[in-house]
């Protein structure tokens, strides 16, 4: 009788573990990601800030789960630990593409900002856009300088 009870307990804990592992599975994370994207779109369409906050909270939760299982991400998403997500070549391509993107982006943002701000007498309705682009460019430069300082100390 005692043995049967223990077997039942074990099977129950097995079910609980299976349910818990479902939350950490790649499919569940993908479904949550799609749901969060849906919330973003719904929030924008409805103009409802609470939906956006809910999406942000869910995204934070998802981020925490992914951070905790950072070393198991390959298994979670690919089901096979031997799959290489990023090798040295893709890392090199990513870094080079990012450098070019950031350089071109900052230049374009500053140029467009200058043009729009210069045209503010003709098109005063776009003056906010011009100022925003300047602020965005400064923000981007600050981020870049901070990251550069960090990596210069690290290497």
């Amino acid at each position, binding site marked *: 009788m005692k043995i049967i009870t223990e077997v039942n307990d074990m099977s129950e804990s097995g079910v609980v573990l299976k349910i818990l592992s479902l939350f950490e599975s790649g499919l569940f994370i993908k479904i949550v990601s799609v749901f969060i994207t849906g919330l973003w779109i719904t929030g924008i369409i409805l103009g409802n800030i609470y939906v956006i906050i809910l999406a942000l909270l869910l995204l934070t939760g998802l981020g925490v789960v992914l951070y905790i299982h950072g070393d198991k991400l390959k298994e979670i998403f690919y089901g096979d630990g031997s799959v290489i997500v990023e090798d040295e070549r893709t890392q090199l391509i990513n870094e080079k593409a*990012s450098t070019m993107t950031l350089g071109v982006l900052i230049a374009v943002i500053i140029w467009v900002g200058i043009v729009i701000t210069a045209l503010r007498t003709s098109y005063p309705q776009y003056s906010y856009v011009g100022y925003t*682009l300047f602020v965005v460019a400064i923000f981007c430069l600050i981020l870049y300088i901070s990251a550069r300082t*960090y*990596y210069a100390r690290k290497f």
Partner: protein
Amino acid sequence: MSVSLGAIIPAFLAILIGAMLSYVYKKNTKEVLYDERMVKISEKSSRIAMILFAISITFIGLFLITLKDLYPEFTQVGFTLAFSAIGILGLYYVFYGYYNRKY
């Protein structure tokens, strides 16, 4: 100055002259401006800065667009940020494709 006056032609001229001067200066400089370490630091910092920047402006843009009923004057700013985020992604994939073929 052209920006403060609201004139477009001096602004274009300033950008053009600045780009030309920068090109001529780089062409005439013979000393080593970058070593491998600096290139590596620059690339790594660009990557993390680009990711953080894209995420930040996407969220700020989304918030501003969502709050269009409360703060309608910032909706345009929100759209500018959202389009900038799309621009980043577009540029990134173009350059990724280019370097993917190159290496």
